[in-house]
């Protein structure tokens, strides 16, 4: 059973409180549509959601082919920022947009916690 929408805000709150996180979102993995978001100004939610879902789909296929199983967490690193994502069993992606030097371990923990709430 998935959580009510009010719980999503709380789950995203915990992620965005981590220093270096510029935004957090829940994204429908199948169609790349925003389910819920808390983003700093300047971050384009629909773009993040569509592109994160697209990377997630391609990565899932590559990882299955490589025999490492379904993805539990992934971290796309770039010069000026990062995307950190945890897929949930229910087909949602919990996404954080962050600075490049963010504490990855901490963000990962909060993403996993949020994923438990979302279901």
């Amino acid at each position: 059973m998935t959580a009510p929408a009010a719980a999503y805000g709380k789950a995203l709150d915990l992620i965005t409180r981590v220093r270096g996180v510029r935004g957090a979102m829940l994204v429908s993995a199948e169609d790349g549509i925003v389910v819920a978001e808390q983003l700093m100004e300047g971050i384009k939610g629909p773009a993040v959601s569509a592109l994160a879902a697209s990377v997630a789909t391609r990565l899932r296929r590559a990882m299955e082919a490589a025999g490492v199983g379904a993805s539990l967490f992934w971290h796309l690193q770039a010069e000026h920022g990062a995307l950190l994502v945890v897929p949930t069993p229910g087909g949602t992606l919990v996404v954080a947009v962050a600075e490049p030097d963010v504490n990855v371990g901490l963000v990962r923990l909060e993403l996993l916690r949020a994923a438990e709430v979302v279901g």
Partner: protein
Amino acid sequence: MADEIKTLSSQLAQDPDSLVFLRLGELLRQKGQLDTAHRVAVTGLERHPHLPDAHDLYARILADKHDYERAFDEWDMALRIAPDHVGALKGLAFLYFKVGDVQQAAAHLEAAQRVAPDDPGVAQALAIARGEGAAAEPEPIAPAAQPIEEARVFAGLEGAQEGLLLLDASGRVLGGALKDPAGRDVTEAVAAYLAGVSQEAARTVKLLGLGKWTGLAAEGHLGHVHLAPPSSDALLLVVRDRAVPMGRLAIIAQRAALAARRWLEAHA
């Protein structure tokens, strides 16, 4: 020595957080009881992950067990925590010396000498590295060398099944190979998917204004992967089972990318 091991074991059992594991692990290593030493070191590291001496101990044990790749990682980790750690500098120098990179070996030994100018072992090793005469062999850390990570990466690029794959921008395999846990060759299938992953990753960071992408690390149920672009038109994949932490995988991937870059330049 046996009495000391017994005493230290007892102390460690009474106080598992105690640092006596460092001395105990070293004594066990010297006695050749590598598996027991390994367990002591790993347990100690779990409790003291930021202690450079713990990483140094573990690295020495791994080197004795001929696991040079992981020994390299552990000494590297020790240096990240404590850049002047003499044991780590000596250890890395030894590994570089073993693969014939005398320049790197000498550089690490010189750094060790700056920190510990009175260490005779460092001075001897430096003399040998500089070819200055028949000094005694440096304190042996491990017997006959196997190629360590950098050389193995090249070997991987020449086709060894190392969980390492180098692709061009179109997804064609340049070197390395992959097998799934069932032992099936999945190189081509993975290569085809990876090209799409890297293109999408590049597009994503570009459209989101995040600059150039530098890596993609993923944790799976059965293993971890790390993707990196060693050059603008190549892609490197490193795959390891879940026993290898993602942080270590990132370090392995960095070095593999460096070796891949050199290989690409050499074969351009």
